[in-house]
């Protein structure tokens, strides 16, 4: 599988398809270790089967997105909260 190791900036387009706010400037707290970071600054892993955005401190999966003919599958369980501009 061809997986690319990028960061949250690179998945701004994909997340923009889903959220109405600018996702790279949103700030989230990792539900596992509590680290707070902007989506733009953490690692993202992009492959044919989907995209995973991970916590910079503990590698917990913060955002998982898969897209298939049935639609988007979005898993945000890795966050305890996500804060974004009004």
């Amino acid at each position: 599988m061809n997986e690319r190791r990028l960061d949250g900036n690179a998945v701004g387009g994909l997340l923009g398809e889903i959220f109405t706010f600018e996702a790279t400037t949103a700030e989230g707290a990792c539900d596992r270790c509590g680290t707070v970071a902007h989506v733009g600054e953490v690692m993202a892993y992009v492959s044919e089967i989907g995209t995973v955005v991970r916590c910079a401190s503990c590698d917990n999966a913060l955002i998982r997105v898969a897209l298939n003919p049935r639609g988007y599958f979005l898993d945000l369980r890795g966050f305890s909260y996500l804060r974004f501009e009004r």
Partner: protein
Amino acid sequence: MTGEVRRLPLRLAWRIGEVVETRPATPRTRSLFLDVPGWEGHKAGQHVDLRLTAEDGYQAQRSYSIASAPEDERIELVVERLDDGEVSPYLTDELRAGDRLELRGPIGGWFAWEAADGGPLFLVAGGSGIAPLMSMIRHRAAGSEAPCRLLYSSRSREETIFADELDRLAGSDGSLEVVHTLTRSQPPGWTGYDRRIDGEMLAEVAPSPDEGSRTFVCGPTPLVESVATALVGLGHDASRIKTERFGPTGG
């Protein structure tokens, strides 16, 4: 992708840009100049997503930072040729003026700078990571007086993207400083840095943490992470350091 089915903002809808010019930037990189009808402008630091579709329908998508200033008419992207890449060899070797490219953007907001944000700016680039920082430098040249210092790591002078333009800009603007480090080969008589960016170099080149610079770091992942860590170790405020990494794989 089913994005087109939903009503996305124009910047996220796939649309067609026309390649108006391509020219080599260095032996391994090429500048692509695009004209995108209806383009509403970008912030320095933002990128576009490009999408290529093969005859059998297979699609590959990549993000490329915009190197042109918001004030420029054409969008400039810098593509580094990765020999085993799926996308970059096509963009550097095959694409010609007059060809069309599917793209969307501008994308991103975190790794971005506008003149109104103010300075001073401290920019750190590795290789083609110069692209979004060049957009900031060009944007700044178009009307900001924020002091700006660039630390730029390249393999050699020949592989330094935008070398001549950076010399020219720095030569005519006392508040823009450009510090190069050439990691593999140096021209005769070179007295500058000749190694990878490290903590000692950053201690010498980075503005004092008291100056509260806005810092942007872009390059390969190891460079970005070592620079960010070293700057925090030197007392810089982590919340003023913004990073953008690109992986050398799969391009």
